[in-house]
Every structure is written in C-alpha cells, then in structure tokens.
C-alpha cells in the first residue's frame, strides 16, 4: 500500500506519503492540530464537507481509493477492508443499544449474513477482546471505559479488515486500563496479522505498539522510518525536542525540554521549512526552500531537514 495525500486551503495535510505493509503497525505522532486525524480521515474519504482532496493517491492493494466511486468504497472497503477506531470511542457507542447489537450491525449490513450468524460473530469477537460473550446484552453505560474501548476494537474487527486505523485508542483511559487495551491490540495484531495505523500524540504509546513511525508537524511528515532508529537517534530537530519533552520513568532523570513558540497557523504556513520559526538550528536556506524528505543513510530512516540533506 502506498498513500499520497492532499493539499488544502487550511493546509491540514500537505504532501504526506507513507506506506504500511501487511502485519505492520505504523504510528502517526505529533501535536494536536498537526494533521494526524485528517490524514486518517483522508484515507477513508470520511472528510467533512469542507475537506477537499487536491491531489495524490491512496493505494490500497494496488487500487486507488481516491478514484473509487463512493458506493463501492462504502460497500467494499470500509469495515470489510479498512476500519477505524475513533478518538473518544467510548462515547461513540450508541447508548440505547446493547453492545452485541452494535457489533452485529456492520456485520449484517456489510456481509449480508443473517442475524443468527452475526450474533455468533459478535459473541466470538467479544471473547476475542477479553470482554466475554456473556456481556453481549449489556448497554454501554453498564460498562467501564476500558470495556467500552475494547467493544470498539471488537467492532472494528467485525468484518475481518486488513487495516485498522486507531485514532488515539486509549487516551481517555487510566494507565492500567490503557496497558490492558494496548496488550489486547498487540495480541490481536499478531493473531490476525493485521496492519495498524495508530494515531497518537503520545510517543511512548507508539513506541510500545508500532514498528514504524511518522512524525508530523504542521501537516507534513518531518521524519519517518523505523521506530527504534527514530527514537534512539532522531535527526530532525522537532523530533529531537518532542522526544526530550516526554517524561520517562526509566533511566536517569533529565530536565524536561520544551519547544518555544507555537505551531504555525496552517492558513498561512511559514515559507520554507514549516518548523524554522521554532527551530534552534534554522539557517537561511530553511526560510526559503522547503526540505524534501530523503534518506538519512541509515536503514529505513527518512527525514525532511536541510541540516541533513545538505546546505
């Protein structure tokens, strides 16, 4: 699969490219407003009415999702091939329907199976995520946050998709519950050979879950590649700062770094490198010329920065 994306008025996502192989987990990381969620919505063409895709292509199994007609996309791709776990998913459940019924819904509408079969599927899915089929008749308010989140995960798996997009899947949860949810996701990924795109502002969560990561800043990918390589030896100044800003409970205690200034207004993004107003190493060229994403020399590690790619 290969994604190439759009150009907007508010330049929410601008010239973003990445690929996810089967069984891979890719993390999209960055501050709020950097275009992580917009990227995910673009993949499934779930953008709001004012969102426009100006160019690029989203290749899924060799097919360009942007050229597919809407009905086909809805019937063949969403749920069956690609599904989403939305941010704040615990509140995305219908309050007046039992969780069993909610899981059955996509199964019936997308696979055309009868109710009995769908019910069985729902039960086994609930078992799979560790809630237990016995709770299928419960309503969302009877469940805790962690269980609701797991219900959402079960639902996203209902039609055996190849790719699951998880948008901040466990941000609203307590650490212990968060660890439980991550564990479930990790196990399922291995068991079902899923591809995952995980969106999170929390680098540490991505570090636990993903093998590749794309760091986004102001609608662009600034650094992309193997997670170990990026977290160990970040090259882009933004990545470096972002990692230093994270508190950790292991290793020696360092002072928390902060990035002075604010992310730019994407209506009028700064010329050249979008990070240059906040970058401590900014040179003249950074203000004029936009850096292209290119190889750092290391295996599977790409960066968009003039410091690396020559003056």
């Amino acid at each position, binding site marked *: 699969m290969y994604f190439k994306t759009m150009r907007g008025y508010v330049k929410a996502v601008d010239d973003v490219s990445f690929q996810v192989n089967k069984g891979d987990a890719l993390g999209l990381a960055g501050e709020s407003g950097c275009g992580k969620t917009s990227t995910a919505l673009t993949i499934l063409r779930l953008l709001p009415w004012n969102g426009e895709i100006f160019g690029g292509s989203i290749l899924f199994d060799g097919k360009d999702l942007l050229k597919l007609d809407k009905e086909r996309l809805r019937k063949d791709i969403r749920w069956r091939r690609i599904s989403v776990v939305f941010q704040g998913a615990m509140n995305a459940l219908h309050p007046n329907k039992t969780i069993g019924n909610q899981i059955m819904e996509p199964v019936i509408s997308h696979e055309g199976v009868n109710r009995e079969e769908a019910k069985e599927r729902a039960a086994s899915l609930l078992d799979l995520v560790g809630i237990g089929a016995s709770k299928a008749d419960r309503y969302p308010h009877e469940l805790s946050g962690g269980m609701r989140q797991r219900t959402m995960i079960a639902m996203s798996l209902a039609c055996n998709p190849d790719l699951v997009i998880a948008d901040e899947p466990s941000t609203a949860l307590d*650490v212990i519950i968060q660890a439980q949810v*991550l564990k479930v996701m990790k196990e399922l990924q291995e068991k079902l050979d899923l591809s995952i795109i995980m969106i999170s502002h929390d680098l540490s969560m991505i570090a636990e879950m993903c093998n590749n990561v794309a760091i986004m800043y102001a609608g662009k990918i600034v650094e992309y590649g193997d997670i170990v390589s990026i*977290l160990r030896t970040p090259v882009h100044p933004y990545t470096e700062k972002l990692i230093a*800003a994270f508190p950790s*409970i292991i290793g020696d205690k360092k002072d928390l770094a*902060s990035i002075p200034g604010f992310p730019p207004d994407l209506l009028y993004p700064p010329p050249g490198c979008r990070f240059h107003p906040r970058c401590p190493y900014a040179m003249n060229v950074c203000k004029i010329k936009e850096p292209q994403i290119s190889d750092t020399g290391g295996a599977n590690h790409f960066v968009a920065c003039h410091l690396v790619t020559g003056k």
Partner: protein
Amino acid sequence: MSRKIGRSTEDEITLEARNVQKYFPLKMGFFKTLMSKSVPVVHAVESVSFKIKEDEVFGLVGESGCGKTTTGRLLLRLIDPTDGKIFFKGIEVTSLSDREMRRMRRKMQIIFQDPYESLNPRMSVFDIVAEPVRIQKIAKKESEVHERVVRVLEELDLTPPEEYIYRFPHELSGGQRQRISIARAFILRPQFIVADEPLSMLDASIRSEVANLLIGMVKRLHVSFLYITHDIALARYICDRIAVMYLGNIVEKGPTDDIIRKPQHPYTEALLAAVPVPDPTARRTEIVIKGEVPSAVNPPSGCRFHTRCLYAWDRCKKEEPKLLPTEENRLVACHKYKYGHLK
C-alpha cells in the same frame, strides 16, 4: 528539579491532613430512599494522612476514582470532610467558620484541571486574574490591581502582558489558558497551592514548558505544593515526595525517585509497569493486573487491593494493612512487609 528534603521532623509543616475521611451519600430514587434503612455511601476518601513541608512539592498519584481530587478539595474545604482534621500552619482549618475560611483562602489556592472550563468565557484575562485580589480586597487602588496582574503575567511568560489582558479565554490556546489559571492562583502569593492535574489536558511540547514554568514559580516563591496527577512519569519531574492512592487510601508514600526506582506496594508496582515508555527497546517486567478498580460503594474487605493483587493471601482478605515504615522515609500499607512473603 528535585530539592533536598529536610531530614529533621521539626521542619516547618505547612499543611497536615490527619485521618481525613469523606463519604458521599449515593444518589437514589425518592422511593428507594424512603424504603431503605440506611443510605449507601461512596467511600471516596477512607482515611488519609500526610504532611506537606514548607517548600515541598507533594504528589498524590492514582487512577481515576481513587479519591485524589476529593482529597485536594477537602484540604481547601471546598467540600467538608466526614471525619478527620486538617491543619494549615498549625491552625485547624476544619473548625474555622466560613468567614474565617474565606480569609484563609488568601494563603491557600487551587489550580483546576481543565483550562477550557475553569475560566469564565465572558471575563477578560485581566478580570479573571484580578478577581482574587478584588474578592480579598487586598489592593487599595485600581492601579495596584493592575500592577499585580501585570507582574504575575510577566512571571508566567505571558509577555507583553498588555497583549493578553484584554483578550478573552476563547482567544487563547490551551497552554496560554492554563497559564492564566496558574497566574490566578499565584497572584495572592499564597503559601499553599493545590494543583489538580494542571497539565493533563496539554500537548507534550507545551506541557513540559508549562511544567517548567510552574516549578520555577513554586521554587521561587517558596510555596508548598500539592500536585494531583495520574501521570506518575510526569510526577517524577515535579514532586519531591509522592503518595500513591488506591480506592480512598494511601498505599505507599515516600520520595518520588525511590518509589519509581523500587516500588514496594504491589499496586505501585503494577501502576509503574503500566506506564508506557518512549523507548521501544526497553525491556520491562510485564505486570498487567487484571480487572478494574472495584466500586467504592462496597469496597473489598481487608486490603482493598486484594481482589487484583498478584500476591494476596488469606490475611489480605480479612485484615486491613496499616501504613508502616519499610525503610527510611518510606511507608507502605501491605501485609507482605509485616509478615514476610508467604509465597
């Protein structure tokens, strides 16, 4: 960022909580209330004691529903405790009248979690920050109010202050808003501040900036600081000492670094193991405890953690463990230490 913790017990204690307890009556329907003999209660805070020294940052750490926020509010008497006593500089706060309490609040302030909800959207930044000064009638002239507001905004890097004072909360970013609520808490130069998850709503890069500012203020003004959080990794950078709470009780208390390096209570251990680490190659012990926090209406008997504890034995179900010292400066409420490990 850590400061030396005084060794002698004669250190000036700013605030002390002694066996503070809070039960909330459970809301029930009218009919049920009539029929049942006793109203069930939520055991929000069972029995919590701690002392915060002058100049110290003390952290309360725990999952949601463990009673940490309730404890913070009890200390300022925003709610009244069911039982127990609270002392501020030797004065028993719990027995003060409302009027005396209002005067006391000059010295005790709070920073709330959500910068989007704790600022009045119809008030300008100036009015929000000046409000405590006006309520306490501290400034004689309006120019003095202005002076104070400008100074505190400058201290929090909201410069130039003129650019901010006429704005309204919706014109500010999350980080700026939270700095406004910090400014509001500091403007009276209090001696004690409760901060209830002041950083949890902020992005990582902004969060560390605000954290550094906050700690700078606390250090410079010699404030005793109670920091309430669920984020034990961040607490490490902010707090000198922490207390870990579970279901209304403190289970472990001690210097932050010691606890993080070597947790002694099984719950603290699990809590630390669950914290994600921004290093994919880090090998960690995997202890993911099962289940969720039980209901505080019918808390488990004996040790409240026994239903999820990996080491629990018979005694844990019957007898409640007391907070006992295991080493210098460390208190742990677990039978494991008193009776030895039975496994």
